[in-house]
């Protein structure tokens, strides 16, 4: 049998890789991809805890599905924003997007 | 353990299992071996059928539709034409264009074939004869179809060709658009059978779902035709517009794989339609003689495949804007309405104790009439608007014609 800690270690790995991507990538689309990685790590954690906790209680799966919905909405709106900024400023580098900073 | 003729497929599995266990293999390993063997047989039989027989069949029937003879040189009735084609494609030079992304370029055709072969894992051929009776079978079909979309975008991007990329983007936009009504309408068989498993859906069809939900069946059929990229929706390879679509840079057997995947896919939607709406292997006597069930299944599948070909050789290609309008302004709203109406009416019918089939038939009839009425009203409004635009124009022309003369 697979111990729960294996799943947690893997999910933690995915999360930190995603975090590194968010902190270090320049391209805004790449940052969004890294956020998707982090969200996936969260979902993996939720499902693992659901499976090793009380699988008859379905709430873990419900949480996971809600996170799916949030991830999809976030990707749709985030990418639309990036496209819009790209149209105006011809850049997708996160450090150049500083309209709100002065 | 004797051979039970009433349950031949189950018996064969049991025989093989006991044989392997007697050889001293552990139980889990035996099930893995059996799965691999079964998957190999399934993929081999279906791919050979698709690659050799279906291509011959399609060319032959297509020729008859167009008053030609079709392939008739290689073997009896040209039956070995597919093999000859395969040998020819194998011997063709395989060109990878300069600037292509080699790895992605080579993986794309493999994924295209895999996405179609994978669909057959959940198709029940006969009682007891199914690859994997997943309880999420319907969604599995949708999921594997998504991999096919990915292969298109990979092929188009890695070719380093404008037309390939443009073709891939159009194709993907089309595939994902038509996935929406397809997924929504799949809710109807799921609801009626109370399960997403393909076996449960077949078992639930005491009355074929085609009779219970004809509108849903229609939407599913149209949108899966579009998923395959068959005429009238073959914008994927509109020669006049985008040369040849996303697979333009492919040659030799890699192109052959895209072709096999396409032919195989249109056969597969015949099988899926059969399972979801035509009762799968069900028919008189199939409960007692499962072999008969297999015959029914194959017959129904080929009938649906014939209809796909019939449509292909009858209708002209639609324009891409017409196609998108068809999807987003007709199929998707219709699918939404069908799902809601079926859900409410079926529940009402059950609670009031009304007979199920007539109620559903009446509902679908009403839906068809309403849709036709709406379309008629829309067409009238459109015609009036066009006439309204034309009226002053006609006056101007008349005035202009009168002007110089007077």
């Amino acid at each position, binding site marked *: *049998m697979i*111990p729960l800690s294996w799943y947690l270690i893997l999910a933690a790995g995915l999360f930190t890789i995603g975090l590194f991507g968010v902190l*270090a990538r320049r391209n805004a689309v790449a940052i969004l991809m890294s956020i998707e990685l982090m969200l996936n790590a969260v979902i993996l954690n939720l499902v693992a805890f659901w499976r*090793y906790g009380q699988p008859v209680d379905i709430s873990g*799966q419900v949480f996971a599905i809600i996170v799916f919905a949030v991830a999809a909405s976030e*990707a749709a709106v985030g990418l639309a924003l990036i*496209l819009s900024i790209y149209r105006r400023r011809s850049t997708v580098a996160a450090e150049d997007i500083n309209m709100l900073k002065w | 353990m004797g051979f039970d003729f009433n349950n031949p497929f189950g018996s064969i599995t049991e025989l093989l299992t006991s044989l392997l266990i007697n050889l001293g293999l552990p139980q889990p390993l035996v099930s893995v071996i059996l799965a691999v063997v079964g998957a190999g047989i399934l993929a081999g039989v279906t791919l050979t059928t698709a690659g050799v027989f279906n291509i011959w069949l399609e060319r032959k029937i297509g020729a008859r539709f167009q008053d030609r003879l079709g392939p008739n040189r290689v073997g009896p009735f040209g039956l070995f034409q597919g093999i000859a084609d395969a040998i020819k494609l194998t011997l063709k030079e395989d060109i990878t264009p300069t600037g292509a992304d080699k790895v992605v370029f080579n993986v794309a055709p493999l994924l295209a074939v895999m996405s179609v072969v994978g669909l057959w894992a959940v198709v029940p051929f006969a009682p007891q004869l199914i690859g994997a009776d997943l309880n999420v079978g319907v969604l599995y079909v949708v999921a594997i179809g998504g991999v096919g*979309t990915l292969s298109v975008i990979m092929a188009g991007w890695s070719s380093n060709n404008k037309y390939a990329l443009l073709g891939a*983007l159009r194709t993907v936009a089309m595939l994902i658009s038509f996935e929406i009504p397809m997924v929504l309408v799949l809710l109807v068989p799921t609801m009626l059978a109370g399960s997403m498993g393909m076996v449960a859906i077949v078992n639930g069809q005491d009355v074929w779902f085609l009779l219970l939900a004809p509108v849903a069946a229609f939407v599913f059929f149209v949108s899966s035709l579009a998923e395959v990229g068959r005429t009238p929706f073959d914008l994927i390879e509109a020669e006049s517009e985008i040369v040849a679509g996303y697979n333009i840079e492919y040659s030799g057997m890699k192109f052959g794989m895209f072709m096999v995947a396409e032919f195989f896919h249109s056969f597969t939607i015949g099988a899926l339609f059969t399972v979801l709406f035509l009762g799968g292997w069900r028919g008189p006597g199939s409960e007692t003689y499962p072999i008969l069930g297999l015959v029914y299944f194959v017959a129904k599948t080929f009938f649906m495949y014939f209809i796909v070909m019939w449509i292909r050789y009858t209708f002209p290609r639609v324009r891409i804007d017409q196609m998108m309008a068809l999807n987003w302004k007709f199929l998707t709203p219709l699918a939404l309405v069908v799902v809601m109406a079926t859900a409410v009416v079926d529940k009402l019918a059950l609670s009031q104790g009304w007979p199920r089939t007539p109620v559903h038939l009446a509902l679908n009839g009403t839906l068809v009439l309403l849709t036709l009425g709406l379309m008629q009203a829309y067409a009238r409004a459109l015609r009036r608007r066009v006439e309204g635009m034309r009226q002053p124009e006609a006056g101007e022309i008349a005035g202009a014609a009168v002007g110089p003369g007077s």
Partner: protein
Amino acid sequence: MTAMQAVFLLLGLVTFISAVMVVVSPQLIHAGLWLVLTLAGVAGLFVLLEAPFLAVVQVVIYIGAIAILIIFAIMLTRRMLRDEGRQLNSLWAGALVVTLILYAVLVFLILQEPSLAAASQPIQAESSVLLADLGRALVDVDRFILPFEVASVLLLAALIGAIYVARPMMAGEDRERQE
């Protein structure tokens, strides 16, 4: 080591390596394709966790929809398909150190807790029963009806918002074409 553990290690390795490739690969499209492989690996892990519904949902939503959306966005935001210039910003070394420390701390904490390593999978109810239960839970007034309906409002808001943000670009495009 049981067969299950071997499968887990294989899937985990694929997931982990492709996740690393997502953040380091210089070509954005490649990063997107690596992301697809990562997501497929996680879907495989869901199968191992006996959550087949979530596994297919992962493939349908993430690979079939979100990954396609991201690849479209990559294609739309580039003058050329080849990337040039740095992909990492000037802070990448610091970010690497921080994330490595964070990972070390997380792994240490997980290994510290003996109940996590000892936890074994309890016997699970029939999976189709669970699926029907999930459906019931989503529309049951006493359970998750509120998140269910709020999710639809969230999706509606996302749809309207994203179209609203993206629409002016289409208008601008038309103007450019007319000029």
